[in-house]
């Protein structure tokens, strides 16, 4: 969108319809998110109705129903937070690397955060969300930098190389994680519940302890919008436009790390949200990164909450964790994308 307005100053009309379209999409996105929020509170292993929720809000529901519905608040709030984090991190990484497959999961950042958290629980007695958050950050950052270093060795980074480097690093870190968890039964027990990626079984404390990190990451992301727009035109053009590609990339990496570390520390590693959402958002919101980041922040939580609801409903009375559901939604999407790939890249 930015490119068309730059190239065609006479396109005021299209710009106005573009604005109308954006406003319409924004409303649609908000409506979808509101719907997902409702669904997350209404549906669960024990079925309740929308009326019950209203009763609870009025304080007139019977205590059992009140307990059931109130137990769904923390996971809903966490779903929103994690959804925003993962989707915006994915959008940033895809924008910075101009790599349509960039995603915290594929590029080893989640594995880095996980390995760091496992090490902390095993040897430094870390427990609770704030502790793990502080451990997740350096792990995620080191992994992100390493993947970029490995991936850009030789003649420069490419899409496939970065994904391969991510897969390699993930393999090594997984070996480490398995070694630690298998030799320490206590760590194994907490790890196996955490690694599937679940919104349930966590309380508001988790939300409050990762919120600051997520907020800082999100603000940096918003500030990077114009820089990313310039970067999309190529490094040379970006410099000519007065932008600093290096600064944008560094900021993007920091913000993406903060966001994905926050999500991973809060709800465990969840794959594919960061991969899938930016693709849909690009198709809807166009090329302007300011719009993309905003729409990602609406769509990420919508997707994650709906996936969580699906997981709660399909296997009643037990639950399927949201990480399992997103893998089974996201991986086929990736496979379809592979089929459509042209040439070798």
């Amino acid at each position, binding site marked *: 969108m930015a490119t068309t307005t730059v190239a065609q100053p006479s396109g005021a009309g299209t710009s106005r319809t573009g604005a109308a379209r954006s406003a319409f999409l924004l409303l649609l996105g908000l409506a979808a998110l509101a719907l997902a929020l409702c669904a997350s509170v209404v549906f669960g292993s024990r079925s309740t109705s929308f009326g019950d929720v209203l009763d609870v809000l009025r304080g007139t529901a019977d205590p059992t129903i009140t307990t059931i519905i109130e137990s769904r608040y923390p996971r809903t709030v966490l779903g929103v937070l994690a959804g925003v984090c993962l989707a915006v991190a994915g959008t940033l990484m895809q924008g910075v690397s101009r790599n349509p497959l960039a995603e915290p999961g594929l590029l080893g950042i989640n594995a880095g955060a996980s390995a760091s958290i496992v090490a902390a629980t095993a040897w430094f007695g870390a427990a609770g969300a704030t502790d793990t958050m502080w451990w997740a950050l350096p792990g995620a950052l080191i992994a992100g930098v390493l993947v970029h270093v490995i991936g850009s060795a030789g003649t420069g980074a490419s899409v496939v190389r970065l994904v391969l*480097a991510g897969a390699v*690093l993930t393999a*090594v870190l997984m070996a480490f994680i398995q070694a630690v968890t298998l030799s320490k039964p206590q760590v194994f027990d907490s790890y196996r519940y955490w690694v599937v990626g679940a919104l349930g079984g966590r309380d508001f404390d988790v939300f409050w302890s990762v919120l600051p990190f997520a907020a800082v990451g999100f603000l940096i992301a918003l500030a990077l919008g114009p820089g990313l727009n310039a970067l999309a035109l190529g490094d040379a053009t970006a410099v000519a436009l007065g932008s600093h590609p290096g600064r944008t990339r560094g900021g993007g990496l920091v913000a993406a790390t903060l966001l994905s570390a926050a999500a991973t520390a809060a709800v465990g590693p969840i794959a594919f949200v960061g991969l899938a959402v930016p693709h849909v958002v690009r198709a809807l919101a166009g090329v302007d990164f300011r719009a993309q980041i905003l729409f990602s922040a609406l769509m990420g939580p919508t997707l994650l909450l709906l996936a969580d609801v699906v997981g709660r409903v399909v296997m009643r009375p037990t639950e399927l964790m949201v990480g399992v559901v997103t*893998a089974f939604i996201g991986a086929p999407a990736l496979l379809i994308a592979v089929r459509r790939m042209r040439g070798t890249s």
Partner: protein
Amino acid sequence: MTVTDRTAPVRKAPRGYLTVGSTVAIPLRRASVFAGAGLFVLLLAAGVATLAWGRLGIDLADLPAALVGDAEGKDRFVFNRLRGPRLTVAIGVGAALGLSGALFQSVTRNPLGSPDVIGLSAGAGAGAAFCALMFPDTVPVPVGALIGAILAMALVYVSTGTGFRNPARLVIAGIGVAAMGAAVTQYVVYALERDKASVLTAYVNGSLTARSWTDATTVWLVLAAAAPLAALISRRLDIGEMGDDIAEGLGSEPKKAKTLAVLLAIALSAAAVSVSGPIAFIALTAPQIARRLTRGSGPHLLLSALTGGLLLVLADLCSQQLPLFDDLPVGIYTMAIGGVYLGCLLVGEWRKGVL
């Protein structure tokens, strides 16, 4: 094979091949003979170390007696129950994986075309996990692993749209399939009781603990059936590496040989997986190491199998003797070392601008 002009170049094998008729041609260059002998000696040494090392080890002096079945008491128990089967399985599984990887890489002409990368291991793990959760007493876990592996391969094959040829597509499709497999496995590990979950985790990482002579027989039977067939098509695969057009011009039938090679590779890795669980990276690295030993152009089948056996025996030696972690599944060692090696390999290929 009918005798026409088209078969002439095949019959006239170049120097450095041990030929039997027109179909079998085992490369016998000096480098490969040396490498083969060296690998064999190393494998013997590693095998002896596996049997003899440690508190329960069999004394070197008593080892010959144990090997022919004359040992008594502790040695007999150690050889028949603990280390003998385990070593035999390790060599067999390693060789099967190495051979499978060499066949895959030869057919796909792609150093990454290995069962690990295309999600076979994750699929096998998911199949094993699924059976452990849903049919704990009716379907044996190895059968589940087999089904999972085959499903994963089919899914990757379908989703690439171009078969196993294109490296980029293959890798990314493999990552997608692996992600689904991992999600299933993690869910099952979450849902099971802790002890069962721990056993399952060891299996899906690839473990050689508590193997029996039956396991050894399984993998060695498949190996014995597959190896001669692989030798039969090795020459045609070599030609196939020059490209389908050239191969056809030389009178070879690349498609048939390739189909057979892929089926053999699947059978071999499936046999390995069903015995030991999916052991990471042996199939990927063994052919690469073998190729570097001989400086050959393509994967060398026999040397790849030897290298695979050696790598797995060494890794299993680590898993039994390293005091760092207590009897960690061998697949975790191969994953760590193989991952680092793959990283170096990729950087090397990129420096050359290959990939």
